[in-house]
């Protein structure tokens, strides 16, 4: 009893010191983020002055950012594009990842390698064919085109993650499901997909922000201003050689907020799933 209590106390101390180190590290991680928020309240002329700490009442930057375009419409576009791409990624990649993860070596492993080549293709050279394809398929200037492009671009990593996580799921489930008379789709949809939820959380967390934050593709493939995304509104503040940084910072703060909400939400589910021992059934 005494020994155990002492041990617990020691581990409490250990955990506390770990916690302090982690918190210090966390402060470092957080610093640039605070820098962004602080900067969104600065006046344009003092934006580069690091010693200038604003009083957080200068909200003109946010006004400018919102007034620069159709903010709500852009927000809607960002949500539609990100959600659409995520839905496709999760569905297609989990199916593929589960199958490849179970199949082991051979044909399906080769398919995984083929998919993985997508992560290493230097995209700079594909632009002209992509544009021509958009025109041929009548997808130019549609949000659908972006959804498909983002989904195709994220499938490799997502599949790779699902393969890894599938391997961590015991094959006993497959056997049990088979005995229960499940076909493969039932096994996937009813048994494996729920078990893969933590992986899905990871996939969302790894793909969503890149898609949301991309401000190149909307400018290349959507010419209609009403279809632009929140982040591509940054472009309203870009002169030929200059940039109005103050509203850009404000816009980034505004554009990041929905992502933080999403992250908090996904993270909660993601970790709850793990904590409740979802893997053990």
């Amino acid at each position, binding site marked *: 009893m005494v020994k155990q209590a002492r041990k617990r106390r020691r581990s409490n101390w250990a955990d506390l010191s770990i916690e302090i180190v982690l918190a210090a590290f966390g402060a470092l991680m957080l610093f640039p983020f605070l820098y962004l928020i602080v900067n969104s309240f600065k006046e344009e002329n003092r934006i580069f002055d690091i010693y200038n700490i604003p009083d957080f009442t200068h909200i003109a930057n946010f006004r400018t950012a919102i007034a620069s375009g159709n903010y709500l419409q852009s927000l809607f576009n960002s949500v539609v594009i990100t959600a*659409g791409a995520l839905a496709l990624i999760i569905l297609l990649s989990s199916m593929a990842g589960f199958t490849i993860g179970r199949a082991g070596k051979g044909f399906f492993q080769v398919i995984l390698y083929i998919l993985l080549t997508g992560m290493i293709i230097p995209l700079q050279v594909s632009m002209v064919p992509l*544009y*021509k394809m958009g025109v041929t398929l009548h*997808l130019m200037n549609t949000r659908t085109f972006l959804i498909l492009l983002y989904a195709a671009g994220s499938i490799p990593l997502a599949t790779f993650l699902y393969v890894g996580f599938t391997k961590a799921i015991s094959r006993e489930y497959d056997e049990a499901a088979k005995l229960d008379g499940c076909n493969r789709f039932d096994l996937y949809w009813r048994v494996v997909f729920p078990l893969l939820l933590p992986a899905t959380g990871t996939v969302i967390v790894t793909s969503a922000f890149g898609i949301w934050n991309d401000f190149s593709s909307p*400018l290349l493939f959507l010419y209609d201003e009403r279809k632009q995304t929140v982040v591509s509104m940054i472009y309203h503040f870009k002169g*030929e*050689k*200059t940039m109005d*940084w103050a509203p850009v910072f404000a816009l980034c703060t505004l554009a990041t907020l929905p992502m933080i909400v999403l992250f908090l939400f996904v993270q909660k589910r993601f970790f709850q799933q793990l904590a409740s021992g979802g893997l053990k059934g």
Partner: protein
Amino acid sequence: MKKSWGLALSVGAAIALIATGCGKGNGDSSASSQSGLSGGATSKAFTITVSYWEERKAWADAVEQKFKQKYPNAVIDWKKYEGDKYVNGLLTSQLAAGQAADIIINQSPAAYGKAGYVADMTDLPFAADEFEGLKSQDSYEGKLYGVPLESVTTGVFYNKKIFADLGINTPQNWNEFIAANDKIKAAGITPILIGAKDSWTANIVGVTINHSAVYTANPGFDKAIHDGTAKFNGQELTKGMKMVEQLAANGYFNKDAFSIGYDQLRQQFADGKGAMVINGNWFLGDLTAKVQPSFEIGYFPIRDENGKATLVAGGDKKVSLNAKSEHLEQAKDLAVIMFDKSLLPLYLKTANALPTVSGVSVDYDQKSMKEIVDLLSALPSSQQIGAFWPGSTNTKFGDMIAQTLADKKWNPSDLDQLQKLYDTDKSTLVNIPQ
């Protein structure tokens, strides 16, 4: 599901576009008869698209108004793109896919002309007014494929107050320029500001100096290089690069030259942290947002030790006509209005840019714009150095300048590399220097 939704959307958008055009056409076809201007005007409604990347609103509005006098049923659809994406690839993709606008504002008319994407403009009235020196870069096999809306030059912009406080007069030759730098440096002020995080701000220092040195020494340098009678490692560029090296070695640039960008560069100049900036005329316009009206800026060119200088005069934002346009005739009429001498000043004034056609005078807000205009007519000028070199050679040239500024030392063997790249890629050149 998603896909068909998107398809429906794009088709819907196209129909909507046609529908609005038609609606206006059917509405008042009588309007066109009011206009005496409408020589070849049709009463049919149509939409002309213009693709561009820099907003010049006052001018664009005036152009649109004048065009509608001629074609009351016309709609001008101004399509603005992000400059970097548009110039470096998007426009080419649009042209290749047959999706480009009727009037294309662009930077490489000669190459597009060679590819057959844009129409010959040689016989358009404003082409005759274009300054001769600007034409060669946008021509291919004797035909003109684009006319720039504005022309740019570079030079040294300085804070007049700092110069006055230190008793420095406008330098009349290279040695006076060096002496001025020393005096400013001794006073604890950065003589010349660079914001090399935007690498062009460093590049333009080398371009300005080399341009003046090279073309003052040999006005026919590009042709000589093309014919092989001059070499990159000859005395011209060697002289220019030694001047660049001297500035760097003497420590005239800001300590944070490589970690700030153009925006911070402007801020530091406005805050009086540096006395000079070697940049283009647009710098004046970009600065106005940062400074009080009382802030006085002067301008002088880079001169050699004998006080001689050659200025850059380069066309920018060139108007070209899509050869496959369904409304080529109307597009030509619109281009003519774009270059209307009563409207161009609207453009040039807001852009702080220089005219490209004769007979246009602009009442600039910036006093030093007047100094630039006067110097341009007094001194020889030519297309910016590198205008007749392949892209690879230009990139290496920029690298050499950046490297020299970073190392405060110039590596002369870089010129041999330039020659090698030029020889490799010479065959890709579209415009040949005359």
